[in-house]
């Protein structure tokens, strides 16, 4: 597919066109950038680093109704994801898209999750390459990702200054590109080559890194190692590092019932850093303190997940480092894992 060009003046029109779908774009709520459905293109805010809450919440909502029930009525009213309509996530970062492709492996593993996969099917991802690393703690390059990464994206936009280079990467991407053809022009051939140079430059700007070689195999051997106690000493046991991680996918299912016998079964995010995540009804907790939970969080991403899906469940977006209230740094921990005897 020949690359296209989207001049910056036409961005608003393009977005207006997309509002006929469920258009999700980065927008500002006070000073916080969050992905939310926009109806007026003016709300979109593309000059941003990365959102606090990753776009995972679009395809894997924090709370979603599975089905509704009523006493005395045997028929369950299942939630029809179709009703949400085709969705376009515009302007997400390559790492978040790559994270979705990682999480797809789990949700289409031994059980095809109907809700998540249907939503993914309905969603087209239009990524925006990172000319500048969104934060000092980005380390996507260490995990096989890139500021210009295409994995998981349907279209990649690259900011070339007065316009965006539009590269359709998948069939969905091409379909969307056709829909937007009125606002696009053909991009000169060398633009794509220029983008590659920019990619290399951007990758050079990533300041932090980790050599993941051997970590998945080594982690299980450090089960009782001293480092976990030290690393988790300051941990508050809150849900920031998991809720804000684009690859975290754990959820809890609960029934919310009202006295009159109406209710719904809902799924909502859960965090392995919470104590009741593994709390048994008997009161026993196999992971009683935050030491075990921190060990589990790191081991799951860097050992258990790769063992099952051949990919480390981390895309190096840096959110868990930036937003941890007590500066627990996953890279510092991983370095300690590498150095641990």
């Amino acid at each position, binding site marked *: 597919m020949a690359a296209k060009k989207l001049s910056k003046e036409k961005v608003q029109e393009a977005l207006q066109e997309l509002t006929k779908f469920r258009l999700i774009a980065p927008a500002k709520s006070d*000073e916080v950038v*969050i992905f939310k459905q926009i109806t007026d293109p003016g709300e979109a805010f593309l000059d941003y680093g990365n959102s606090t*809450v990753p776009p995972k919440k679009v395809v894997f909502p924090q*709370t979603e109704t599975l089905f509704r029930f009523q006493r005395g009525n045997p028929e369950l009213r299942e939630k029809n994801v179709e009703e949400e309509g085709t969705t376009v996530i515009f302007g997400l970062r390559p790492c978040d898209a790559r994270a979705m492709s990682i999480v797809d492996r789990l949700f289409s593993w031994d059980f095809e999750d109907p809700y998540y996969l249907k939503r993914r099917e309905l969603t087209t991802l239009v990524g925006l390459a990172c000319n500048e690393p969104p934060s*000092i703690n980005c380390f996507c390059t260490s995990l096989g990702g890139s500021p210009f990464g295409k994995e998981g994206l349907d279209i990649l936009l690259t900011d070339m200054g007065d316009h965006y280079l539009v590269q359709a990467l998948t069939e969905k991407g091409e379909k969307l590109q056709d829909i937007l053809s009125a606002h696009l022009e053909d991009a000169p051939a060398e633009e794509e080559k220029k983008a590659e140079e920019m990619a290399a430059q951007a990758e050079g700007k990533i300041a932090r890194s980790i050599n993941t070689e051997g970590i998945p195999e080594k982690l299980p051997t450090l089960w009782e190692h001293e480092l976990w106690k030290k690393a988790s000493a300051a941990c508050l046991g809150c*849900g920031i590092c998991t809720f804000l991680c684009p690859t975290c996918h754990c959820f809890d299912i*609960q029934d919310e019932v009202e006295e009159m016998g109406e209710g719904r079964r809902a799924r*909502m995010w859960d965090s392995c850093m919470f104590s009741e995540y593994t709390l048994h009804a008997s009161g026993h907790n196999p992971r*009683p303190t935050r030491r075990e939970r921190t060990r589990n969080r790191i081991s799951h991403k860097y050992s258990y997940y790769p063992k099952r899906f051949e990919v480390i469940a981390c895309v190096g977006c840096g959110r868990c480092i930036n937003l941890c209230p007590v500066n627990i740094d996953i890279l510092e921990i991983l370095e300690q894992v590498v150095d641990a005897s």
Partner: protein
Amino acid sequence: MVEVEKLREIAREVISRDDVRQLIGYRQGTYGFRARPAFITSPEEVDQLIFSPACVNNLATYLTLEEKLPVPRGQEPDLRKVAVMVKGCDSRALVQQMEEKAYERDRIVVLGIPCTGVVDMDKVEERFPNVLSRGEIALEGDKFILSFDGRREEVPKEELLADKCKRCRYPTPLVYDQLLDQEVARFADDDYSDIVELEKRSAEEKWAYWEEKFSRCIRCYSCRNVCPMCYCEDCVLDRLNPQWMRRSVDLSENTAYHIARAYHLAGRCIQCGECQRVCPVEIPLMELNRKFYKDVEELYDYEPGTDAEAPPLLATFKVDDREDFIL
């Protein structure tokens, strides 16, 4: 400002005592200007301890946050003391915790740090983004001196000072075993101007303001877990039977959560500002707590965390409490 050597010397002496199990202080963060809590259990680890305007955490929360593993049969629980470094505002958390009998005074060794104000790390990182190498922050006169990557930047104190410090009434710790510096006289006060301004708005405007904030909340509970006053064994809001508040994350449950949390801090919050600092979606939680704080002060002339012997606010009453709203 506290000289680091003196601080480490006192810390070494304290942690060497056989009746002290652990010392909680601050150490340099992993990048930029960040500082983070340090947990010292032996004299050798003392050299990592620092104190600077970057040390924003309230370490008092760790006294009640510690998860106690069941003591194996035949062994005794380690009841040795815990030493903790506290700034002026942090020390009020100790006073309030002791007022609520969380622990006895003799269970803790308090190293008091008279504080001249700490930075708002968001403002620092906004002003000097992408600083990876370890940066230092110091306060000289009324200027913050930031040294990093070989550069030395001077910034007027006001511009980087944390909001809570602009209204700090207790710079010098109210309880301490040792003071690591001379006392700092009170340099600010709280006129609740922001609260008063919000109170004046109409019901619709106020709700629109809070609806925007509460809709962002992702219920990560960092504001609860960081709070030194939130130390219930099993938070009533997490319970399923009865279920006060549902797990689902939406405006209704989020609002219920924030009302319950703020109410549970009525007459207990000591304004250390941690909840607002840690909130990933920047909900102005202090504006919630300080509404109760202002009412409690005006109506009942009560300031939490200032007198360990004072009875809890909501467990006392005066016969002439105001009741003009009662039919």
